[in-house]
């Protein structure tokens, strides 16, 4: 793609952002991610020492404070385990990685579609003269199902070869995520063995969060994925024991500096941190099954972040809590009751 679109990084940049396994927050670069992990997830609550990994913290707690670490601090409910050794982006299980990418991709297309709907701009590569006839190709559910069926058949036949049979070998060196033009090269995630839930990314008003994330069942380790990602070598090693991953394929982009990298809110310049918090909140809400009223929610959150709205747990400056308690029937003393 020739020209850079204003303020909206392309998918490659978005997807190449490092993110934290424990809280799904994403960061401008790996250094920031690592310092986030040290501060938020690997910090000793006894002495404040920042360790490099959960395992390191566990050893530290054990040796220095004689205590046992049971879970990772500030982590999402199903990511608190100490069995996975995470450092930066190292050690993230393949299935979790794919879930994350899927979510990013969906969000990306969702936001793009939202923007187009809002501005009325045609998709890139289409000038006005070409008319509305050449709209984004949106597959009907039937087509999708057909494609899914084909894919499954291929998978059933070819097994691990499914990826290369796709005709898009990752070895070609190009990004596996071409610019979003005609159609959607990303078939919906098929959870192997699970019910096929086609999620069409660009359907306006469609579901933003993949149903499989993050509380849902994760694909078994080493399972062939519906993605055009280079799959893990089908060695069959259990996911939990894999500190080394296949090389990260998305680094080709070299994201230009100065992009906040927030695909969702093009008009928001509050910076990556603010955005990260929003994501955290959105994830939590999604987990709880709450759909935020997006625009209003974000606006409100921003306003409140600026004001120091502290609330006092106990605010009566004339009477102490004890005086109030002394008046309760439970504690009241009457001089006659000897």
């Amino acid at each position, binding site marked *: 793609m020739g020209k850079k679109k204003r303020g909206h990084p392309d998918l490659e940049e978005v997807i190449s952002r490092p993110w934290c396994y424990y809280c799904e927050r994403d960061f401008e670069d790996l250094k920031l991610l690592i310092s986030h992990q040290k501060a938020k997830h690997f910090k000793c609550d006894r002495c404040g020492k920042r360790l490099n990994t959960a395992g390191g913290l566990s050893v530290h707690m054990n040796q220095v404070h004689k205590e046992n670490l049971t879970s990772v601090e500030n982590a999402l409910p199903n990511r608190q385990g100490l069995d996975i050794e995470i450092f930066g982006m190292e050690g993230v299980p393949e299935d979790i990685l794919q879930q994350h990418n899927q979510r990013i991709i969906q969000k990306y297309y969702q936001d793009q579609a939202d923007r187009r709907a809002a501005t009325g701009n045609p998709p890139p590569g289409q000038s006005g003269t070409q008319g509305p006839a050449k709209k984004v190709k949106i597959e009907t559910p039937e087509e999708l199902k057909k494609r899914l069926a084909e894919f499954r058949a291929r998978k059933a036949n070819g097994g691990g070869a499914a990826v290369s049979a796709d005709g898009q070998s990752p070895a070609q060196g190009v990004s596996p995520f071409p610019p979003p033009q005609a159609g959607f090269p990303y078939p919906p995630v098929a959870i192997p063995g699970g019910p096929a839930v086609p999620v069409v990314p660009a359907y306006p008003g469609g579901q933003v969060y993949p149903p499989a994330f993050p509380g849902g069942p994760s694909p078994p380790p080493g399972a062939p994925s519906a993605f055009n990602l280079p799959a893990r070598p089908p060695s069959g090693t259990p996911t939990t024991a894999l500190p080394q991953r296949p090389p990260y394929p998305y680094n080709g982009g070299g994201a230009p500096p100065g992009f906040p990298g927030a695909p969702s809110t093009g008009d928001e310049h509050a910076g990556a941190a603010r955005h990260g918090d929003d994501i955290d909140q959105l994830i939590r809400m999604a987990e709880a099954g709450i759909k935020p009223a997006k625009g209003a929610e974000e606006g409100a959150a921003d306003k409140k972040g600026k004001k120091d*709205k*502290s609330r006092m*747990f106990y*605010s009566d400056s004339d009477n102490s809590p004890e005086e*109030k308690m002394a008046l309760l029937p439970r*504690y009241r*003393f009457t001089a006659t009751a*000897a």
Partner: protein
Amino acid sequence: MAPGTQWEVAQPPNDAISSLEFAPDSSKLIVSSWDKNVYLYDVGANGADEATLIRSFEFRAPVLDVCFGANDDEAFVGGLDQQVYRLDLTTGEQTALSQHNAAVRSLAYSREHSILVSASWDLTLHIHDTSSSPSAPQPTITIQLPGKPHAMASSPSKLVVAMTARLVHIYDLPTLSKALQSQTPASEITPWQQRESSLKFLTRAVACMPNDAGYATSSIEGRVAVEWFEDTEASQARKYAFKCHRQAANDEEGGDIVYPVNALAFHPKFGTFASGGGDASVALWDAEAKRRMRQLTKFPDSVAALAFSGDGKFLAIGACPGFQTGMEDYSGEGRTHIVIRELGETEAKGKGPKEK
């Protein structure tokens, strides 16, 4: 006995804790509760990580404060029934010392001067001379206060009384002692110093430095102030206050939730102090270096009371639900805990430049 271990007392009071204190010379811990009882524990006896309940003493009304007297077998008790008692911890005998016209909020005993001071919501202090035998009538002086007392603490030579309207009066204990002996009329007894609290909100706790140099106060608005007794400009310029015991609210309203700092206690040796707040955490501070040394979190509930043992080896933490604005009912029943933390050698030791 690994350093820095902590354990919970097996038989805590049945309701909220109002105060706790270690005996100056032994590992006995005395606890007063809203369930009308005073509890006596032995902490870490025989080197075991446990505290055994020696016995409990029932009173007529919820007990608001308790303190040890001249020895480990004598305690003083005050509470909602408006009386000040001397309690013999071996026999359980209760002797009424004086009668206030409202609940007795806090007690302070000075070993050096054998003086017991009781502060009551009837806006008076009663100064008791405890040097005479318990049975003999004791001379008592009643001092009128300009505000309702909420917290009181004594250092070797000073008595700090914190009241409503941010009033802080500091009395000189030797002067009070002399007044008791000479039966000086109460009207002639004036505070050694009258100050305005450095904190804008209601004072919650006061604790004095063991080296007699100053004191710390805390308020309902998550803040602690440290001040020095010496009334010179240089000394007063040293005083400071800081925010603590606050938590970012996780709900959509945002902002901080500011908790009251319910308890303060100075370490008997290191000059450091601990603060306990409604956020269920305890922080250890280095008063000289103005630094937080350690934060102990995740106590079962709001921290209501704190005490260091006489040798500085243990820190007792009383946790029970905090009373919140707007509460119409309250009960600490079944939710009251006492945690004993055995401090590591250097855990409560300051690292400041003025370290001794």
